[in-house]
């Protein structure tokens, strides 16, 4: 069942320019997923250049390292989102981080991670974003 929450949609609303900034964030999650498969999750915590300077991301990576995954991880990270009182671009970015971390912890393939995260561009832009991200993937 598709759930709809009008207030959530209002909170996620932001401009096209801001949505374009999701590209580097999603690309970073693809790199992190490949690195975790190659070198293990401890390598993500030790990464000196995580490329995502965000407290929620740092906390999430540590939780994943501790072995929290699936619904438990999603619930904890969602709680952080709930109490942050963010709106607009910061909130959208945090939602992408939460979804990206949960995917990473679940061991999703990079291709699946991209497909999950491009949904944050909105239906009208998701397909273009997907083609762009897959076209530029190394």
């Amino acid at each position, binding site marked *: 069942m598709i759930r*709809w*929450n009008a207030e959530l949609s209002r909170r996620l609303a932001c401009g096209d320019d801001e949505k374009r900034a999701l590209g580097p964030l999603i690309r970073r999650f693809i790199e992190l997923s490949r690195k975790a498969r190659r070198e293990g999750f401890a390598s993500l915590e030790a990464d000196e250049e995580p490329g995502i300077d965000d407290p929620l991301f740092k906390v999430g990576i540590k939780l994943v*390292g*501790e*072995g929290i995954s699936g619904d438990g991880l*999603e*619930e*904890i990270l969602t*709680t952080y989102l709930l*109490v942050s009182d963010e709106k607009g671009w910061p909130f959208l970015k945090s939602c992408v981080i939460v979804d990206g971390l949960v995917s990473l912890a679940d061991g999703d393939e990079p291709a699946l991670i991209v497909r999950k995260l491009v949904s944050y561009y909105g239906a009208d832009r998701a397909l273009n974003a997907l083609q762009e991200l897959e076209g530029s993937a190394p």
Partner: protein
Amino acid sequence: MISGLTRVDWNSWKLGQVSRQKKDALFDLACRLALLCSESRTKGQSTVVSRAADSERRKSLRFGFELLENGSDEESLEQGFEEECRAEGLEGGDLLEYTMVLAGLKSLERGEHPFIALRRMTAFLGTEYFDKAGSWMKDYLKRRKADKPMTFLVPGDFPDVVRTLALDGHSLERVLRAGGRGLASAALAGCPQESVELAKPVFGPLGGAVLEDDAQYLRRHLSGDEISQAQSALLELITNLEEGGELELTEEEELYGEPDFVDELTRAVMSLEERDLKPALKNYDPRLLAMAMQGMQPEAHERILGMLPKKDERRVLNAVDSMILLPRREIEAAARTLAERIIGSLRKTQGGDSPQIPQFARIRDWPTVDQTG
């Protein structure tokens, strides 16, 4: 889309600014609840809750304990708290407290590990409390009296597979993470402590402690069949990962010393008189000796241990007990080092003519795993 967010009633979620002082007080409350979660896993939920309810002064907790004492499950706890928050018109710090307490009590009701309960509760205080919670957990591990792990072995190959996977740390991590820590704990509940020790590092010091405690907890709460099912599920996952080319298992044989090498080393040790062996073993690293002994037959163990002073014998035995089964490469490397030491000692006591020197030289020069392929 994150499903939890779509269920939030944003209109009633009015937190506003909560003071640092209130958050600090809530952090202490969360730690107190985490300790109750821990106690509840050993003494039983009803005993712990009814005792805590008698002395509790905090309204939010008293309310929650009352619901639990009346047999509330997770869903009715949630409903009870929602109604209470609405009836009282709670906002800000009070709303935060009730919501956090509800999260802690749900953990307690599920029998979750205290660390998971604390992570859930402190998330309500924001990311700035994450490291503080981590420090509390580290202190908790230092302070607690560790029970001697109870062993419950379920027949099957799973412990051997864990050993094989552990030869390449990433393979073990890949499997345990793909299965999830919950399934891993259930499977490890039917394994010797050695398997748990091999798996713990995958999740770091805090996650490793949760894995070990959960395996211990599940040993008392799952049936042998349920543990077997968890092990089968992980074994099936391993097969799938192997078939998908995501996992390559090292051969099991590589965990043990090569039989010819073990025979040669055993013969060499047994050929030594007490006057030859004793000086060589004097002040020798007990861990290195224990590693080399994994490449010898039991009679050589007895010969070596019998020549050590009681104190050193205990140290070597402790090292043997704490040691996981080593790969062939490491056993042979330790045996080569021991052979070199014995050769040096024989040269000193008997000169270069000792008939045992060529025997130990063969051990020292034994081709490595890489050389033999």
